[in-house]
């Protein structure tokens, strides 16, 4: 309950931000941080709580984004319906990916590989079919108004992504206090033992990947509405998959607040380097990659684990481990 109280207080506090801050620049940073936290939390459901490392969350993200865009541009359907459809289609893609891998108990490398490959397949498909606009991309016409899910002011987008992120965080809080979440973590920690205790590992993992896909898909819809432009590389390229996994890994895998911490840290770093070196092609992604390597090398449990006491304990443990090997 205390965690829930902190969570709600935190989100309430964040919600006050656009009331006091009138700079579009700062609100944009807040939006992008919440958006990062949303994508990160989506990944965290499957990767952090379920132990299934997906390298292709862009498959879900891009499906949500393209659904919203194609619904509006090609079919003339209201974007609020596109929002729901984007989430649902992302869940469908997630279910297909999950079904084809979890059914045989494939995990680890294989799962990472399959998810990455699915994202690539979708990227190339969206590059060659006409209704996604192929390589040229798809442009959503500017039409401000709540009915068209576009906002003249940044704070409208702020509350949209805020609500999505809040939903994701509430679901993850619920996972920490429910039978489903407990089963999922049991499968992560030891699948065979969990099965022996009667946990239906396949069903639990399917639940996790579909929830994860839902929030990634919603993140995709948000992206489409906010930037109003998509192309195959933006939607299904590696950048989103990497950001999705980097956020919880920086913040702390399998923790409720990790993705928020991670998104804040990541955006602070990205912003800082942007100011320092400017927007040079490749540099920001190279930095993400380097961060990923450094985090896994030096701080595999994320910033959440970073405290002096924790560090000392870890060093002591490692020293003991080395002695044990010798």
């Amino acid at each position: 309950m205390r965690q829930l109280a902190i969570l709600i207080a935190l989100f309430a506090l964040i919600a006050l931000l656009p009331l006091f801050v009138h700079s579009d620049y700062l609100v944009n940073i807040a939006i992008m941080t919440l958006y990062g936290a949303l994508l990160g939390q989506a990944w965290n459901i499957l990767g952090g709580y379920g132990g299934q490392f997906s390298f292709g969350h862009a498959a879900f993200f891009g499906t949500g984004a393209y659904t919203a865009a194609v619904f509006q541009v090609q079919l003339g359907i209201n974007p609020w319906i596109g929002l729901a459809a984007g989430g649902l289609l992302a869940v469908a893609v997630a279910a297909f990916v999950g079904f084809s891998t979890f059914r045989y108990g494939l995990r680890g490398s294989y799962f990472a590989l399959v998810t990455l490959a699915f994202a690539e397949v979708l990227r190339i498909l969206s590059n060659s079919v006409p209704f996604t606009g192929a390589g040229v991309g798809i442009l959503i016409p500017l039409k401000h108004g709540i009915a068209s899910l576009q906002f003249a002011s940044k704070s409208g987008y702020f509350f949209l992504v805020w609500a999505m992120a809040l939903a994701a965080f509430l679901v993850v809080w619920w996972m920490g206090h429910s039978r489903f979440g407990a089963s999922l973590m049991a499968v992560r920690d030891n699948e065979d033992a969990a099965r022996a205790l009667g946990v239906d590992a396949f069903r639990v993992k399917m639940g996790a990947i579909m929830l994860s896909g839902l929030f990634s898909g919603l993140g995709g819809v948000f992206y489409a509405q906010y930037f109003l432009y998509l192309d195959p590389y933006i939607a299904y390229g590696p950048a989103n998959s990497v950001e999705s996994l980097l956020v919880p890994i920086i913040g702390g895998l399998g923790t409720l607040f990790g993705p928020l911490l991670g998104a804040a840290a990541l955006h602070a770093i990205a912003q800082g380097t942007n100011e320092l070196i400017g927007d040079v092609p490749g540099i920001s992604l190279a930095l993400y990659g380097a961060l990923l390597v450094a985090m896994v090398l030096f701080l595999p449990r994320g910033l959440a684990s970073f405290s002096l006491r924790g560090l000392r304990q870890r060093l002591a443990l490692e020293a003991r481990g080395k002695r044990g090997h010798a």
Partner: protein
Amino acid sequence: MPDWGIIIPSVLNGLTTGALYALVALGLTLIYGVLHIINFAHGALLMVGLYAVYYLNAQFGLDPYVSLLIVPPVMFALGYALQRGIIGKAAHGRDENILLVTLGLAIVIENLSLYFFRSDTRIVDTPYSFKTVEFLGAFLPLPKVVAFFGALATAGLLWLLMTRTDLGRAIRALAKERKGASLVGIDIEHVFAMSFGLGIACLGVAACLLLPSYYVNPQVGHGFILIAFTIVVLGGMGSFIGALLGGLIIGVVEALGGLFLGESLGQIGIFVIFILVLIFRPTGLLGQKA
């Protein structure tokens, strides 16, 4: 009525491309067999090899085939150093960490080369780039024929290494039983790094054989990653023969797909195979239980 005069050259062309795919996949499957991880930096490291061949040619006028003496050993050393210095250290006893690190390395390598080399596509000009060989009524580009036999020879050498040398025995022992291997005195870290180095050296060979008929840019690895993954999944993870066979099959499928469906949709055939294998036989043609 199919026109064999078109299909046969297409199949032969596919086989020559497929042999190179197989070589790339061979490195991947070797690393998977021993370390039980997919090296997500595989495509990026192939790109590094291609740039090495390109610059040796552009700066020193070295023929790509002469680079076979330089690039594979350098790539081997690079692979050894990466495994020993970064990947192995980041494992902390969990395979997931290795996955993440290879992914991180791939992103760093790709984007740094985007930064340094720009996204221009470059090719190497050799006197034999456009020579052809006639076989069964088909005119095949000479570099592709060389690549075909080069890839097969490399696979043969690798097989000899794995079956006839102490290193090969140590690698196979380690692949089967980590603890047992360390108990009989195998230096695990060293052999891991040797396997990784060998897998990357395969990429070096592939780069030298590839460049006379191919191009290089910072994204060039992407095209190979998915194909190499598909081959490894198709052939069975960790299976050598499977990788060879899978490579040739994928090469032919791609060529025929391009012939019948057109260039941009031709790759769809590969994905169809990928998804079908995934659904009906996820352990691959020759793989054991994953």
